[in-house]
Each structure stands twice: as structure tokens, then as C-alpha cells.
């Protein structure tokens, strides 16, 4: 028998433990911690985040959080944003800390924020880096649907001491959505397809697992890609389903009109009814894709656009 090296065993055991630790540590994001609803919230990690006083210096690392903070009347408390935070226009007076994937941790620290807020549009690595720097950070990863949007607004409201404003905002958003749904009662639900990529780049759309799928559904249409996942959808499914309406997101490097024109002229899509009947239209993607205070408006605009086509 071979002589066993005790060091080798110890090292193997150590390695094994290292493998197991992250599994155990990340096992349960939902801890049972009681949070009051003023300046305190439990974020997605199960972490209780409490502020001593109303935050005066907030850094937002996600465009939808920035929009939410403005809607809650906290725009003047934001001291840092990302390059992608572009609404409302006042944000451009605020310093940017970089892009969504790799914001500058140093820059964030130098802004001395009372709290940093990030949604699922941001990166988990950023959260860890800020944790290590002892910066207070709340990470919200809500469900990919309208209820998730409400929940995000509510939690940001709780954390920043603006719960009442948040509740008013949510209730007015709910009113808009239910109004849309009332107006659609008794109407035929048209089938719809949302284009985020096409042609040579492959066919990509808001599949059933995306937030946009919920927006399309609430707007009174049936998303033909509901059974797809991960934004990918087979061309032949699109041709076979032949949707009543096609909603276009502007493609990168092209304007909305160019995107629609190119789609219509492409030989793959020319046989679609929506192309022939010209029931294809574009909507600004930021309002559609961001889970934020404008989401109810997005549902309404989408519903109006579909109605305007006579559907």
C-alpha cells in the first residue's frame, strides 16, 4: 500500500470545506427578521437594512431605482447614478459612477452615501464589493412582473422613509392598470410579438419568463412567445403563430423607423400578417422594460397603441 501523506488529506478536506461553505451560506435568502416599515427593510439577501435617519445622500445603481427615487420625491437626495440612468432629465445633473456592470466602487465610496440602492439590473459582485467596504447597500431582486414592480417601489419607500408616498404611487399605478383592463373587457385579445432582435443576429423576444411578458398580457394582448424562455424564440414559431401585432424595440445602432423598415423588408418576415397589414409599431423600450414608476403608463400606452390599430 502507498504511504499516505497526511498533508494531502488535510488539504483535500480543506478544499472540500471550501466547496461546501458557499452552498450553506447562500442556502436561505429568506431569514426571519422583523423590520419596521420606517427607514428599514429586508432586502433580497435577507439582510436587514436600517438607517438612523432619513437618507440625505443616496447612490442609485439601477435606472429603475433612480426613476423610483425621483417619483418618491427624493431626486434631490441622489448623489450618484449610473450612465444608464436617463430619466427624468434632472438625472443628468447628478454625477455618474459608471455603467451597470462595473460601476466604480471607489467613486461610490468617495460620495459618502448614507445608502446605496441597486435592483436586479445591477450586478451582485457590486453588492459584495460595497459590503466589504462597509457601505450600506440594499439589493432588491423582485419578481419579474407588475407585482414585483409594486414591491420594489414599496421597499424603496420603506427604506427611505417615504412609505406613504410610495403607497399612493402604487395605488395610482394600480388604478391605471385596472382602468386599462376594464376598457379591454369584452374585446378580442390580439396575439402579439415583441421584437428585441431579428434577422442575422437571431430572433429574440420577450419570452414568458420576462417582465415584458407581464406588461404585454396586462395591456390586453396574448404574447405568442409565452412558452419560450431566455429571450430566445425560433423563427418558425414566429411564422407559425403569425401574431396580430408586432411591437418593435429600436435595435442598437438604428432608429425606430429604420428598425421597423428593415424588419418589414427582410425576407424572413415578409409573409407575416402584421407586416402585410402594417400592424407593427414601435414603443420606447426604457418605459416598457424598466420595472419602475412608469410601468403602469407603459401598460396603458401599449394598450392604446394596440387599440389604435383597431384591435
Amino acid at each position, binding site marked *: 500500500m502507498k504511504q499516505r501523506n497526511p498533508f494531502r488529506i488535510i488539504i483535500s478536506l480543506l478544499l472540500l470545506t471550501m466547496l461546501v461553505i458557499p452552498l450553506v451560506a447562500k442556502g436561505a435568502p429568506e431569514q426571519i427578521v422583523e423590520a419596521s416599515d420606517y427607514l428599514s427593510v429586508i432586502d433580497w439577501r435577507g439582510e436587514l437594512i436600517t438607517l438612523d435617519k432619513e437618507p440625505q445622500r443616496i447612490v442609485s445603481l439601477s435606472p429603475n431605482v433612480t426613476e423610483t427615487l425621483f417619483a418618491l420625491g427624493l431626486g434631490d437626495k441622489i448623489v450618484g447614478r449610473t450612465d444608464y440612468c436617463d430619466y427624468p432629465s434632472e438625472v443628468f445633473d447628478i454625477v455618474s459612477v459608471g*455603467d451597470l*456592470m462595473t460601476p466604480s466602487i471607489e467613486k461610490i465610496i468617495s460620495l459618502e452615501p448614507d445608502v446605496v440602492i441597486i435592483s436586479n439590473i445591477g450586478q451582485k459582485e457590486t453588492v459584495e464589493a460595497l459590503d466589504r467596504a462597509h457601505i450600506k447597500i440594499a439589493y432588491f431582486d423582485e419578481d419579474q412582473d407588475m407585482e414585483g414592480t409594486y414591491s420594489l417601489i414599496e421597499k424603496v419607500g420603506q427604506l427611505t422613509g417615504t412609505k406613504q408616498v410610495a403607497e399612493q404611487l402604487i395605488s395610482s399605478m394600480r388604478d391605471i392598470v385596472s382602468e386599462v383592463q376594464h376598457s379591454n373587457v369584452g374585446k378580442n385579445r390580439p396575439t402579439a410579438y415583441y421584437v428585441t*432582435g*431579428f*434577422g*442575422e*443576429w*437571431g*430572433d*429574440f423576444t420577450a*419570452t414568458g419568463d420576462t417582465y415584458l411578458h407581464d406588461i404585454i398580457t396586462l395591456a390586453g394582448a396574448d404574447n405568442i*412567445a409565452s*412558452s*419560450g*424562455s*431566455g*429571450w*430566445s*424564440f*425560433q*423563427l*418558425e*414559431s414566429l*411564422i*407559425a403563430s*403569425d401574431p396580430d401585432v408586432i411591437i418593435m424595440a*429600436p*435595435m*442598437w*445602432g*438604428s432608429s425606430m423607423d*429604420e*428598425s421597423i423598415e*428593415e*424588419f418589414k*423588408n*427582410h*425576407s*424572413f418576415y415578409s*409573409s407575416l400578417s402584421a407586416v402585410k397589414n402594417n400592424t407593427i409599431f414601435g414603443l420606447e423600450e426604457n418605459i416598457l422594460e424598466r420595472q419602475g414608476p412608469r410601468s403602469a403608463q407603459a401598460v396603458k400606452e401599449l394598450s392604446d397603441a394596440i387599440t389604435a390599430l383597431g384591435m
Partner: protein
Amino acid sequence: MKKGVRLGVILPVLLIVLALLFAYSLVVGAAGIEISKTLQILFTGRVYHATPAFSAAQHTIIWNLRLPRTLMALLVGSVLAVGGMVYQALFRNPMADPYVLGISSGAAFGVALGAYVGFLSGATGMWEVPAAAFGGSLLASLLIILLSGGTRRSQTTLLLTGIALNFFLSALMTLLMYLNRSQLQAIMQWTMGSFSSGSWDKVAILAVVSLITIGPLVLYTKELDILLLNEDAALSLGVSVKKVRLILLLLSTFGISVTVAFSGVIGFVGLMVPHIFRLITGPKHKNLLLLSLVGGPIITLASDIIAKTAVSPSELPVGVITALAGTPLFFILLVQYRRNR
């Protein structure tokens, strides 16, 4: 190593497998058209005449989507496998694959550059992306051939130049994508390979290109055998080494550049397929050429079927599947290879 299986046995088996995969690829798809209907549509021909038997959309799906897509997978598989075979002989290196001369990184760089300068956008038509990719890959490969002194120097110089420039171009492509993040996802997706944009125009071009690049090889199988030995042996046997090498190099490089332009980077086919048959039937290029010609499409068609069905109605990138299935197979081969030494 002994020559295990005879060509007369394995080739018919492979042809049957290929025919079955071809038929299955036409029948299977997210649109769920019944087999009987699919056959009916196939037999009516390419032009649709209104009929209650099937819809215009179903006719389009079979004739304009599935058939060209399947044919494209078939042609790309052949060119990649044969290209790999030629490269491995030219470089006398079992690790040489069709992308070693910067073809894939050149293509990806071409696409990234095209997007960066605004030649490409998310809404460009059918030809701009392949044009950018083809330009990039051809430029990169020619640059490598020139930089390394072409075929005058040793194959090792050529191989090393290729590897170095590959890294350089990949880094350059990453930099361009980093500078313009909005394009990142589309370009990444593109590089992972897909047959989903297959069309009749592309099939026609690929068919001509395959003929031009694979056809002449029939005349050169003996030279390829001799090249594998060494250059001195080749010279003494009267093979004009430099001329043959240059012709074969240019032909294969051109063929592979066209496939990359149309279908993105589909890895491991060109590396794997020739090796598999070298193990099974031995290193004679007369056999290898035939077997690669049939074996390549088997891998690409099977991979495309998986790409279409695994997450239907969504789709996986083909390049991911060939690499996922290819790596374990390759390890098995390596172990086998060592054992036989």
C-alpha cells in the same frame, strides 16, 4: 495502430445515419407540423398554391426555413470537417483546427468592428453581417500567412503566428465590444454559431464554395498523405511541397471563412471529425476525405437538431452544443491516442 473498420462497411452506415438525420431535421421543429403534412408540403414544390391541406405559413416554414437551414448545416459540416483534415495534414499537427489561422477571431473582430463604425446595426439586412465577418476572417488569415512568411517557413512558424494573432484579435474584439456595450449581447450571440438564418441564397453560395474548395482535394489525397510524413520525404517523392501546400491552404481558408461568415463559430467539428475517422479507419486521406465529408454534417445536423429541440420554442446556439458534446469525446480520443503509443 491497425486499420479497424473497412471503408465499405462504415461509409454506407454513415450515409444512412446522415439521411435519417436530414429527414428528421426537416420533420422536427417548434411549429409542430405533422410528418404526413411535412411530406405533402415537400412534394408540392417550392411555390405555394392555395390548398386546404396546409397553410402558406406551413409551406414557408418547410420550404424557406427548415430546408435551407438543414442544407446549410450539412454544407457547413462538410467544409469544416474537410478543412480540419487538410489543416491537420498541412501543419502536421493533430491540434490544428479550422480556426487556427485566425478565421474565427478575424470574423468576430470584423463583426465587432463593423458594429463599432456603424456599418452594422441591430437591424441590418441579410448580407452586411456575413460580409463583415468574411472580410475580417479573410484579412486575418492572409495577414497570418504573410506575417509568417507563408509556406516558405516551417509550419510551426505559421501555427504560432496564427495563435498569437488569434489572441490579439480576440482582445481587440473584446475592447471594441466593451467600448460599445449595447452591441455586446448580439455579437456574443452571433459568435456562438447558429444555422437559424439559413436561406436559399446562402445555401447556393455555400454549395458553390464547397465545390470549389473540396472538389480539388480529390486530386490531392496522395499528396496529403505524403505531406504528413515530412517535407524531405515529400520532396524525394516528387511532390512540389510548397505549391501544394499553398493551394490547399488558400482553398481551405477561403471555404472556412465563408462558413464562419454565414453561421458563426462552430467549434470542434473540424478538430474532432477527422480524428475520429483517423482512429477508426487509419490515416489514408482518400478514405478520410470521404468520411469527413459525411461525418462533419452528421455532427452539425445532430447538433442543430438538439439546438432546435432542447429548449423549444426557444433555441440554443449550435456552437455551444458542438463544444459541449465535443469536449468529452475529444478527451476519450486523447486517452485512446496515448494508449496506442
